[in-house]
């Protein structure tokens, strides 16, 4: 039996970022959103662990009220309970980590915290470690394989310079990559069941975090100009190829990409 806490984020679809063409400011309200790609895999992994070992999967989401859309999906996939902490303010990862830590303490005990390795939008990849730091738990980051045996979690992490196989006693924090699994697609009956499940809402006061203070203020988010130079060289005449290739190599040198 494992009790697993999974974190999911109501993330921006970065491929459809709404950008004001004049100011290049990001219009967050107009940018479509979804459950974070890696978060979904964390949930899938939790569900698989539950199916294998028995137990319970609790999902926590910190985000705007509309995030209940993805919690419906969370229920449809098979979570036992889903909690939303509605907030419209920008929260840095530290604040979110504090919320998770408090939730863990108040609603635990949990054997495992499973999270996406990084969010789909801001992609900082530090939340899991910050939660582990606050709760003084071991962390296995960016896992692409998880095994649970003898009250220990073993996982393989894909880091910068290679693969690390770690083992940690429970409770532990594990964050996952996109490669770990292929998330299930809910079926009709799962969706109907999900519609009848209740999304629990908790306020920051419920978690005694009224005085939560951000350590970082996002002051300005602006899109980069997505302009390509479109310098076109004609090499349809085979005799030109030599010259054109030389030109290209020079351009690439100037760009500093060779």
């Amino acid at each position: 039996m494992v009790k697993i806490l999974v974190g999911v984020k109501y993330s921006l679809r970065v491929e459809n970022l709404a950008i004001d063409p004049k100011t290049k400011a990001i219009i967050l309200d107009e940018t479509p959103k979804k459950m974070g790609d890696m978060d979904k895999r964390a949930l899938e992994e939790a569900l698989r662990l539950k199916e294998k070992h028995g137990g319970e999967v609790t999902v926590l989401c910190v985000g705007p009220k509309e995030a209940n859309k993805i919690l419906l999906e969370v229920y449809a996939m098979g979570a036992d309970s889903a909690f939303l902490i509605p907030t419209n303010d920008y929260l840095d990862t530290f604040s979110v980590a504090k919320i998770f830590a408090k939730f863990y303490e108040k609603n635990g005990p949990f054997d495992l915290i499973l999270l996406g390795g990084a969010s789909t939008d801001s992609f900082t990849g530090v939340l899991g470690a910050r939660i582990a730091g606050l709760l003084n738990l071991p962390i296995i980051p960016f896992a692409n394989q998880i095994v649970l045996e003898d009250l220990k979690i073993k996982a393989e992490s894909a880091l910068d310079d290679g693969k690390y196989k770690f083992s940690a006693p429970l409770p532990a924090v594990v964050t996952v990559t996109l490669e770990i699994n292929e998330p299930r697609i809910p079926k009709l009956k799962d969706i109907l069941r999900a519609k009848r499940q209740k999304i629990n809402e908790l306020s920051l006061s419920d978690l005694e975090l009224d005085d939560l203070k951000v350590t970082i203020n996002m002051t300005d988010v602006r899109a980069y100009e997505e302009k390509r130079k479109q310098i076109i060289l004609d090499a349809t005449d085979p005799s030109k190829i030599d010259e054109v290739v030389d030109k290209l190599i020079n351009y690439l040198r100037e760009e500093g990409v060779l």
Partner: protein
Amino acid sequence: MSEKFDVAIVGAGPSGLTAAYFLAKKGLEVVVLEKGGELGSKNMYGGRIYTHVLNRYFPEYTREAPVERWVRKEQLYFMTKNSAVKLEFFADDAFLKESFTAYLTKFVQWLGKKAEEAGVLIATGVRVDSLILEDNTVKGVIAGDDKLYADYTIIAEGANTLLLDNLNLKPMTKPEEVALGVKEVFRLDEERINERFGVNSEEGVAGLLVGFPSLGSIGGGFLYTMKNEITLGVVIRLDEPVKKKIKMYEVVEDFRMHPLIKKLLRDSYMIEYSAHFVLERGKLPDKYLYGDGYLVVGAAAGFELNTGLVVRGVDLAIESGKQAADTIIEAHEKGKQDKQTLASYISRLKNSFIYRELEAFKKAPRFLSNERLYNQYPEVVNEFLKEILTVNGTPRRLYSTFRKAMRNKVSLLDLIRDGLGAVRSL
């Protein structure tokens, strides 16, 4: 888990949701199955909703519905490649509340919320693959490995009638029976839209553009002002691009490059590109609209009205949803699901405005499939006006100018014939 509902509805569009709403109000257990991940995400149309049915069934819409602008100006453009003649109707206050512009995506979300409040279970992200057919009776739906039983099934799948076609519940749709609508949405600030179209923030414009927009093919262009956007697009019968060897995705951009349109869209930027079917064939024959255990509503039933000058769908969809709900409520009270009992759907439709209006425009498709309407007349009108408005010292008489404009384009006989045809079909 065995699920059984009184009514299963395939498709959360205006017709399906209206039916669901009225059924749930009567205490029936209703489930709506929608393939889109979110309500409204697969719904698309030009941009206008007529209010008469809303006044009757959802009078609170004036406060609640996501209205963009009330249509104050109706514009009709006859366009050639470089010029345009515009007819404008400026509505008085009484007319003002006859229609409004809105996004169907958002309208459906509103309707869905009402249905849920009435007790409907809406399941999004569910693709219905087939219907349960037992003893020649439709007994629910099949989605993947799951079956969902229901006493009544309402097919509200929209103009792209995949379920009906696959189950041979009606003949396969033919290319000449449908038109393809392609729409582009342009963001422009409210003030500039007001200024450019001569309206205030509450008022909007609905434009129909004939001739050049469909490259002289059967069909036309449309233009609606939203609060902060202009929607623009073309509707062309599906067999036309093939005949003319023109590509649909290019037609709409060619139209947009017309000097007049370019001016209207100046400083805006595109935020979405979409496409959807529009029916040209008119309603399905009665026998395909109902059967043992099921009814067909909305665009799937052919309840769209495209007269060339007026394009309507949502009001017909809502009305058919209401009639289907009433039919099922009555049948449910009798405890019957058979075809004979459900046949009262047709008599209800016949008493509603749907049949009256579809009947009235029955001849329209023939008149409207006359190419001259899209090809030659816009040319003639433009050339005629250009001729009489050009001042270059040469005296001209109206009739000879008219004849000159018509030359090589259309014969007087054609004109008379078409004129008579138009009158007969209206």
